[in-house]
């Protein structure tokens, strides 16, 4: 024992003599100065990251709201009522009235039209009439600014029985519906909208068609409305019957095709890579006392049907502050600190399963859960004391790569995806992470909540 003490004393005195201080080297300072400069650069980015993330999240929410709100809020009522011809015989009455409830444009019947002349009612805007070479009349009524009002009168002259005959099924086949769909678009004003180029048989066809591109949003899913998207689809319109019958078929197929496409795309297997950045808050045991952190990472996801499995890696800066009572270490302090401030660098490896609760071609909403593995890359703890402690009282403690918590964190998330194009989509993902085990050197119940913003590359 004496030998031990002697040895200790010899080394203690010999190595702590004040006169044996190492000589200063400028090269060492230059190395430290470089470290300080690099920190300043990184710090600028890290400080801005939570703010950038927050602004991006707010913008995404705003744009999502803009796109998701109903496109035709109360301005357009696409259904158009059709009055049956009096007496149930359009041929004899010679007049078909199509009126739109609440329509702003009340078109009057065109009466007494002469051969080769088509006296459009002055109240009908943009109604064009044309006479083909055979003297048959093709009347096309376009919508004049107003989305709804259409009135088409057909005056049938003697000798034009065929026309009358073929007009009848139009109204009889689908009495409550309309041949034409309207669009309240300024662009349609004054445009010569429709012509039936099939007057070869000397038959008079009256068609009212919209601008095809302007039609879809409001009429595509209305069961009471038939959309004639493209005049070309009424090929063979030489026969008005054919045209009349073909029109609803075409119209009905249009939305179905879109739905089928969407369903096919949503139900197939797909792969995606996502770059995520998030701003989050961290608390121990609760969110009563929080500190703001951030993370960034890359996720790979595989989807089939409504389910998507995703995994990847997120590098997280996770600061938190907690009362010392929540901090559990083996070390016995001579005087316990009051609070512990932690600054941890964590590699978060999540495995999440998301279920799509809503989705169409553009927008998807999913809810998900999963587990995360936390690899604690670096942990810096700083202790704060209420009073000046006597004896040894550490100011802090730092460790690196010491704690790993495999599947130690439970994840919950809600994911909104807005498709930008066939390859890319924007993600907005609020999330919550709850610990299943004690985290880090301090064995704390660290929980995190945040909002991630991401850009996904849809590989397939």
């Amino acid at each position: 024992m004496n030998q031990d003490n002697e040895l200790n004393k010899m080394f203690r005195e010999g190595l702590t003599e004040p006169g044996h201080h190492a000589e200063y080297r400028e090269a060492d300072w230059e190395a430290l100065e470089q470290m300080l400069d690099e920190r300043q650069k990184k710090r600028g980015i890290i400080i801005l990251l939570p703010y950038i993330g927050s602004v991006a999240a707010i913008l995404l929410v705003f744009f999502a709201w803009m796109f998701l709100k109903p496109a035709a809020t109360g301005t357009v009522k696409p259904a158009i009522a059709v009055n049956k011809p009096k007496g149930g015989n359009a041929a004899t009455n010679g007049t078909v009235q199509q009126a739109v409830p609440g329509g702003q444009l009340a078109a009057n019947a065109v009466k007494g039209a002469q051969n080769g002349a088509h006296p459009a009612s002055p109240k009908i805007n943009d109604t064009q009439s044309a006479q083909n070479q055979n003297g048959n009349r093709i009347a096309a009524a376009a919508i004049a600014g107003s989305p709804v009002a259409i009135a088409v009168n057909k005056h049938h002259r003697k000798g034009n029985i065929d026309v009358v005959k073929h007009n009848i099924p139009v109204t009889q086949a689908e009495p409550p519906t309309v041949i034409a769909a309207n669009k309240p678009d300024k662009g349609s004003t004054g445009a010569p909208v429709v012509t039936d180029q099939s007057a070869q048989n000397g038959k008079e066809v009256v068609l009212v068609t919209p601008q095809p591109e302007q039609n879809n949003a409001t009429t595509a899913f209305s069961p009471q409305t038939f959309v004639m998207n493209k005049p070309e689809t009424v090929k063979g319109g030489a026969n008005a019957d054919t045209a009349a019958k073909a029109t609803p078929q075409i119209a009905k197929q249009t939305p179905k095709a879109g739905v089928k496409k969407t369903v096919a795309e949503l139900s197939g297997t797909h792969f995606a890579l996502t770059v995520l950045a998030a701003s989050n808050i961290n608390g121990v045991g609760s969110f009563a006392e929080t500190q703001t952190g951030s993370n960034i990472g890359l996720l790979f996801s595989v989807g089939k049907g409504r389910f998507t499995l995703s995994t990847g890696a997120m590098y997280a800066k996770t600061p938190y502050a907690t009362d010392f009572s929540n901090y559990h270490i083996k070390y016995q302090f001579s005087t316990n600190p009051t609070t512990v401030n932690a600054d941890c660098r964590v590699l978060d490896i999540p495995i999440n399963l998301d279920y799509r609760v809503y989705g169409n071609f553009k927008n998807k909403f999913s809810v998900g859960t999963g587990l995360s593995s936390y690899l604690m890359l670096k942990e810096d703890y700083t202790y704060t004391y209420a009073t000046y402690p006597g004896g040894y009282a550490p100011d802090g403690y730092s460790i690196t790569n010491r704690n790993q918590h495999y599947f130690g964190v439970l994840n919950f998330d809600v994911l909104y995806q807005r498709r930008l194009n066939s390859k890319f989509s924007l993600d907005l993902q609020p999330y919550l992470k709850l610990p299943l085990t004690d985290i880090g050197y301090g064995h704390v119940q660290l929980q995190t909540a945040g909002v991630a913003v991401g850009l996904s590359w849809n590989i397939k």
Partner: protein
Amino acid sequence: MSDQELQNIIEGCIKQDRASQKMLYKTLYGFAMGICLRYAGNRYEAAEILNSGFFKALTNIKKYDESRPFKAWLGRIMTNTAIDYYRTNLKVAYTEDIDTAPEISVDESVNAKLNYEDLLALVQKLPNAYRTVFNLYAIDGYSHDEIAAMLGINAGTSKSNLHKARQKLQQMVKDQQGNTGRPGTTMAIHTMILTDTFLKNILRR
């Protein structure tokens, strides 16, 4: 340097003033390097530990409690940084060395008078695990329980490492006494030459 001068420098460091930071570094370089050299295996590693420790101190200087001695605060940072620097190696060393170190007779008293360079060279020749525990216990005055908590080991392991560190040091002192009439001098010079050569090579890269 007076306490007031040091306080002024610290206030400059709190404002991230680079000139103040350099002044503090120059002022306390010798003191801090003395600690790092004890815990490090050579001068190059000591310089790395020193800069890591100063980096922590300068970036967290707002947390310094002015009612306490600054040198003590900086010294603890250097010690903790040195422990962190070798932490991975320490764990490996514990598992490898505890039961395999040969027993050395310690019946001869150590009465040699060694200078600073000799002692430093001897300590730096110890394996990391032994050197750390020896420094913490014999020189810095921590208890085995404190060392165990700091290093994440058992107190028994700390005692064992200290015992083996002493055995090795006594053996080295004995060897020196046997090899040279004036213990330690030759080895100290040799170690310094090697260390300086190593440093020069590193700095030239």
